[in-house]
């Protein structure tokens, strides 16, 4: 039992597995963001609001994802 548990923990904390999960997470975030943009465009989003989405939402999201990738890179190399 202990061996199985140790093996499981070893696998789920392996950098390759975390990178895989992170990639899936980023894909889901991108998909939902595109969906949110479409929702805004189709149902009442005015041009100024769309601009806010593009200028504020996307860059900040990109910065967070970039920082997460950097932290994961540092984690992988230590």
């Amino acid at each position, binding site marked *: 039992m202990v061996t199985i548990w140790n093996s499981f923990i070893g696998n789920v904390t392996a950098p390759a597995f975390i990178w895989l999960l992170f990639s899936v997470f980023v894909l889901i975030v991108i998909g939902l963001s595109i969906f949110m943009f479409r*929702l805004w465009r189709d*149902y*009442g989003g005015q041009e100024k609001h769309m601009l806010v989405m593009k200028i504020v939402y996307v860059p900040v*999201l990109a910065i*967070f994802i970039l920082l997460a990738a950097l932290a994961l890179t540092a984690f992988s190399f230590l």
Partner: protein
Amino acid sequence: MIKLEKGEKLIYEVHKHSFVFVVHTTKVFVFSVAPLFLVTVLGSIFSLNFSPKTLWFLIFLYMLWLVVMWMRYFVEWTDYYLDTWYVTDQKIYDVLQTGFFNREVSVLRYENIEDVTVRVSGLFPTLLDFGDVHIQTAGEDSSNFLLTSACSPKEVREIIVSAQSAYRDRGSS
């Protein structure tokens, strides 16, 4: 924006008050900084000493948390902004947006409106002029239309009542 019928004129758009959005913003902010607070407090209580590897992993998790919170914030904005009543000269469209995947559009004709009630309750709603607008409809399939925390609810009520009167006058003439 919803698609109006030919010859139909938009009179008024009823949105929720921005106070609702301020509350959501505060909530998201508190949830965003909560992990930092938690780690600092727990670290000082239990004298936790993180290895560099663990620290980077925690930073990674925190960044993911911030991504989720940032998206949550914009979902709240979407909910707040797209949850609207469109008052036209012929009917009222009630658009209810809940999250990304739930959108309900109901149409209410003036001949079915029985009563429009306004409810302003509490300190902030009274000071900032927002409250609930409730429309009760007549008929066998009577249903209720409710917009919570609407801006200037009394003005909304007056606009709906006068639009209904104008509609009836047009119908009788």
